[in-house]
């Protein structure tokens, strides 16, 4: 999920220059956003996703893309085009995702991509939102009685090679003057078996993946403990191309709209009852006053469409992440002990 970016090549620069030129040319007419104009003309949003990560984006048995990344894409389609169904998902891999964005093959990426300086500075992308705060965690067996990573001096740890997890563990153990033996296993099923069969004392990867893995153990889930230390920051979110600020605004505010809706308790089921609300921010959110949509270059009903067709942030979470057994934790709203905070809509 978090393979380190390899050399991106000068092609990015080249594509970036071309994009900047075409973006300024498009300013003369339309909405002021080359991407939004292209999406409107096509009548379809093209969204790059992983297509292979449960809970984020994974086709179900009927081939329909499910997950918070998929639903976040649908929300943008609802905001831009008024119809969450006008969307095409392009599965991308960790190697071709940035090229797909740069070359215009996709309009945006929601591909469980970690927001880092390198990716914004070098790769010509901008992160518009964080729909999932993740981090590297540790899973141990309850029988070992380990309560903290600090007690794991000399432990063997199962980890996937080439991931940012591997780096994070090495850094953390060095800083804390602890020793550990990594057991590097590429295949996911194999690494999980290695941990279960006791080949390693701990299994380390993204905390969300660990929670999901623990949940899959069914009755035996309580035999495993997720240690309290989260040793790295992995904010995952939407990435758009640099040079199209209006499009960036729309993607970012679509996400904020789902947060604001959750704050006010507006869901896909009760959104219509709020149409007579007196609260100014709700009226602005639902397009009853303030011309917020016009400012973004879309219909004033944009956020109404998002909430009605996709739901608020809490609904998206409950639909996709709760069934995997991952607690909401820091992904909750700011006023419920989490980090999700939307600026005011006014």
């Amino acid at each position, binding site marked *: 999920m978090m393979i380190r970016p390899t050399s991106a090549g000068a092609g990015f620069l080249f594509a970036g220059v071309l994009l900047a030129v075409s973006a300024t040319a498009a300013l003369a007419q339309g909405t002021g956003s080359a991407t939004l104009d292209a999406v409107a003309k096509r009548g379809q949003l093209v969204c790059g996703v992983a297509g292979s990560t449960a809970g984020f984006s*994974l*086709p179900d*048995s009927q081939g329909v893309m499910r997950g918070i990344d998929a639903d976040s894409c649908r929300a943008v389609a609802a905001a831009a085009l008024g119809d969450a169904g006008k969307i095409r998902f392009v599965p991308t891999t960790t*190697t071709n995702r940035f090229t797909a964005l740069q070359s215009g093959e996709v309009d945006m990426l929601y591909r469980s991509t970690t927001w880092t300086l390198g990716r914004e500075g070098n790769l010509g992308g901008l992160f518009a939102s964080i729909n999932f705060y993740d981090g590297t965690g540790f899973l141990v067996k309850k029988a070992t009685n380990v309560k903290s990573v600090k007690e794991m001096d000399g432990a063997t740890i199962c980890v996937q090679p080439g991931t940012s997890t591997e780096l994070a563990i090495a850094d953390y153990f060095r800083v804390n003057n602890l020793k550990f033996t990594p057991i590097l296993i590429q295949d996911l099923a194999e690494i999980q078996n290695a941990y279960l069969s006791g080949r390693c004392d701990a299994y380390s990867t993204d905390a969300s993946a660990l929670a*999901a893995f623990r949940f899959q153990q069914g009755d035996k889930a309580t035999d495993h403990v997720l240690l309290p230390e989260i040793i790295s920051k992995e904010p995952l979110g939407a990435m758009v191309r640099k040079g199209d600020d209006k499009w960036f605004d729309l993607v970012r505010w679509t996400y904020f709209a789902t947060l604001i809706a959750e704050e006010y308790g507006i869901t896909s089921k009760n959104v219509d009852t709020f149409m007579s609300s007196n609260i100014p921010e709700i009226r602005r959110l639902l397009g009853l006053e303030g011309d917020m949509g016009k400012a973004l270059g879309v219909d004033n009903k944009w956020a109404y469409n998002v909430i009605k067709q996709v739901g608020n942030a809490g609904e998206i979470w409950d639909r996709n992440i709760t069934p995997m057994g991952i607690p909401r934790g820091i992904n909750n709203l700011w006023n419920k002990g989490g980090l999700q905070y939307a600026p005011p809509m006014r």
Partner: protein
Amino acid sequence: MSTTTTTHAAVPERERPPAMVYGPIAWARANLFNSWWSTAVTLALIYLLVKWAVGFIDWAFVNAVWTVPTTPQGTLDPTPCRNAKEIGACWAVIGDKYRFILFGRYPYDEQWRPAICIVLFIALYVMSAMRRFWRKELALIWIAMLTVIGVLMWGGVLGMPYVPQDTWGGLPITLILATFGLAFAFPLAILVALGRRSTKLPAVRMLCVVYVELIRGVPLISLLFMASVMFPLFMPVGMNPDKLLRAQVAIILFAAAYLAEVVRGGLQALPKGQYEAADALGLSYWQKTGLIIMPQALRLVIPPLVNTFIGFFKDTSLVLIIGIFDLLTSGKVALAEPIWQGYSSEVYIVLAIIYFIFCWCMARYSRGLEQEFSRAARR
């Protein structure tokens, strides 16, 4: 079941050959039990084989879980599978996911269309394999069938909704990549092989040599990467040839380079006298090539040709690295579903069976073809 009894007329029984000289018992004695050492090895191997077979049958059939109950929320409850882990196979994963594995993200209600396409592809293979269809009309049939397949897959006419090709997946993608790949690569390969042997056109020869060596010098995976990652960067913004098409072109170019070398091998194996005899008859270059050289050269290289074909059929699964859902990728993605993680053996066995059937048929057919063609030589 049958209750009929037949009475034979008194045909004088032919005397059976002695059991100790001919027949299965004699064969076993001669080959499996001819010394104490070979008897020991035979018995040990039989023991291992039976033990393994019994274990496999237990796992795959006796203790297998075929279906899992549905929870009141409408999701599947994999508890029976979890309880049978290590003891029995969980075929319920196939029951839940077989349509996804076969057809990928193709819209669920329209999946009869790719299903018909698979049947059409197989019909096309069978027809092309039968000698009585080896006429000029076969090319027309191919064009017609491929058009029908295209119409079915894309739709947009005759009341069928349009399905963009990035939602195609599963077995049709594998068959499309392999069929179009080899169908276009083969003629290209013949031209390149001829070009490489050309003595009168040094420029063409150099071009063919450079093409073959360049393509053969890099792995298919890097060609696919180039097609998927590098190529779009050199195109004007907004102009994006489809990902599937780019992968298809990469596979055609790669296959053609390999097939060209196989064909060239056949050309080199032909005695010089054949060329000279054709020249002596006053045939033009293309007549000579089409009527004398190619039929003989291609016959010589059937085994390596089929070898390359089989290799490429399986190599199409490499498109997984650029995010195309071919048969293997669909299987892997089906396994990413949380409730089915850990049941990879079941899915991979099914995928292996599908791949094996296609490859085995190709191998069998080439054997038949070889025997038929070598009849003249044996006479």
